[in-house]
């Protein structure tokens, strides 16, 4: 089992306050507040349509909430923007894998370094001088990630050809290439078999240990959630119904009702 002592340690990295998000008349998220602390694995769970993915989209700026505030690294905003979120160290993966299908594994992960590359485009054009040194340096970092995720053998394969499990791994690699401070994982294990799930669990825990990355994840596999996460927030119909350690959440009557249904 994972060490429990980390709970209650670490300063707040991200604080979501009273966020509400509507699409026309549909309330996706209503008045939700929670925080993510440095170095923890924070799970967001809930039945289908509970607003979990919407929440991640709010955090990395894909959606702009109508109400509420988001405080990240001490700066409070009414909404994030994707470009700002990425440059401030928020990386993410997607529920249905969003990769650059025509590009190789290597190129996909290299794209994750885009924001870190600053050398003038003139030098890059001629693969010369400072740009060459920079490219080599970034390439080295990317190779480390490839090693870390054990995907050396598919380095030069266009990712569109890869099986789903490996695609998810490449996507994680691209997010890690951004050297994120906060990593948002949207159902990293959806559609995987047991062995792939175990691998992914290991990668997530190693990421936390090795890179000190804070992780927020959405997952439906309760076993995985309870094993991996330090704290869990539970959403239902866009409303927060519970927040606490896995054990607390597991024992919460509202959560049990939400998942199992309640007799009316």
């Amino acid at each position, binding site marked *: 089992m994972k060490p429990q002592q980390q709970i209650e340690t670490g300063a707040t990295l991200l604080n979501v306050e009273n966020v509400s998000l509507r699409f026309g008349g549909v309330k996706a998220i209503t008045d939700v507040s929670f925080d993510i602390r440095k170095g923890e694995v924070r799970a967001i769970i809930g039945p289908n349509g509970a607003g979990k993915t919407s929440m991640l989209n709010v955090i990395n700026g894909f959606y702009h909430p109508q109400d509420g505030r988001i405080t990240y690294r001490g700066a409070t905003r009414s909404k994030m923007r994707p470009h700002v979120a990425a440059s401030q160290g928020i990386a993410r993966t*997607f529920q249905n894998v969003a990769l650059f299908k025509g590009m190789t594994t290597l190129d996909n992960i290299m*794209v994750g370094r*885009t924001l870190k590359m600053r050398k003038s485009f003139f030098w890059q054009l001629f693969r010369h001088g400072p740009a060459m040194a920079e490219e080599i340096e970034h390439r080295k970092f990317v190779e480390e990630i490839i090693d870390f995720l054990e995907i050396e053998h598919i380095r030069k394969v266009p990712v569109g050809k890869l099986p789903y499990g490996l695609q998810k791994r490449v996507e994680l690699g691209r997010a890690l290439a951004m050297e994120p401070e906060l990593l948002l994982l949207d159902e990293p294990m959806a559609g995987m078999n047991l062995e792939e799930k175990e691998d992914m669990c290991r990668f997530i825990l190693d990421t936390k240990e090795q890179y000190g990355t804070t992780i927020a994840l959405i997952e439906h596999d309760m076993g995985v959630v309870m094993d991996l996460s330090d704290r869990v927030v539970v959403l239902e119909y866009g409303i927060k119904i519970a927040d606490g350690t896995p054990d607390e959440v597991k024992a919460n009557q509202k959560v049990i009702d939400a998942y199992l249904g309640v007799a009316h």
Partner: protein
Amino acid sequence: MDLASLLLAPAFFAFDLLGLLKSIFVTPFADMAAMPDLLVQTIWEGLVSGVLYALIALGFVLIFKASGVFNFAQGIMVVFAALTLVGFHEKGVPAWLAVFLTLGVMLVLAIAVERVVLRPLVNQPDIILFMATFGLTYVLIGLGEFIFGGEPKQMIAEQLYIPRGPIDVAMLGGRVTFQKIDIAAAVIASVMIIALALFFQYTRIGRALRAVADSHKAALSVGISLNQIWVIVWFAAGIVALITGIMWGARSEVSFGLDIIALKALPVLILGGFTSIPGAIVGGLIIGIGEKLAEFYWGPLVGGGIESWIAYVIALGFLMVRPQGLFGDKIIERI
């Protein structure tokens, strides 16, 4: 004798079929072999118009690669850029300054397109973006006619130091004429094509462009700014349009008629693949050379005029064999 019995007469068929086969499969090649200098001349002419088709196709490919938008307005952008250049010069601006000012106008156009057309239509289906570029075409035509008037203009070729005049080379027992301006067009096009290819393959922005072409949301999530990328590609397409406009305008004249010729880029793209820069080049050359040869050697068979449609026939043939084009991204689909 009425028509039906004429057509049914076996002698009619036997005679005509043989003659037809001969004039399709034998005579043209015999002509080619008999006068090789004429063949070289024809191929050269085809090569030059091929290079210009390739340039127009390149403008399409740039925008298609980065935004998945088939930019119907590319042809009119060529005309618009050329008109702007000539327009500035008519107002007394020196030629070199006029080029820079025109580049400025193309940049403003790129920013305007991004703000007014692309940004509000993010995540809309491709067909809607395509229709938007249709609209853009007519806006540019109207704007162009309003500012510069509808009558054809002369490209300021001498002022831009574009060489003119023929070079005659004696070869193959005859004489082949190369126009200096055609040579210049070929050289400039080659340089630009190489530069663009390097740019796409090896630079951070190039990689970001390819990323945006593949998936908008994934590109956003790694911090690529879509708006910035779109301005860059539309500006790049604007530069390509200006150069195309100068070269083409110098060979004939600057008028809205160029827009029709720009449609020739369609078969070029089908041939080369919508996402491939080398494809645009090779496709352009095949179409250019193919239609000139067809016009010269097979044209008389049907009374000429082959040049205007043969490109589409070639493209149609390719479409049946390789729908993704010669160099297009292989279509990968998991089922």
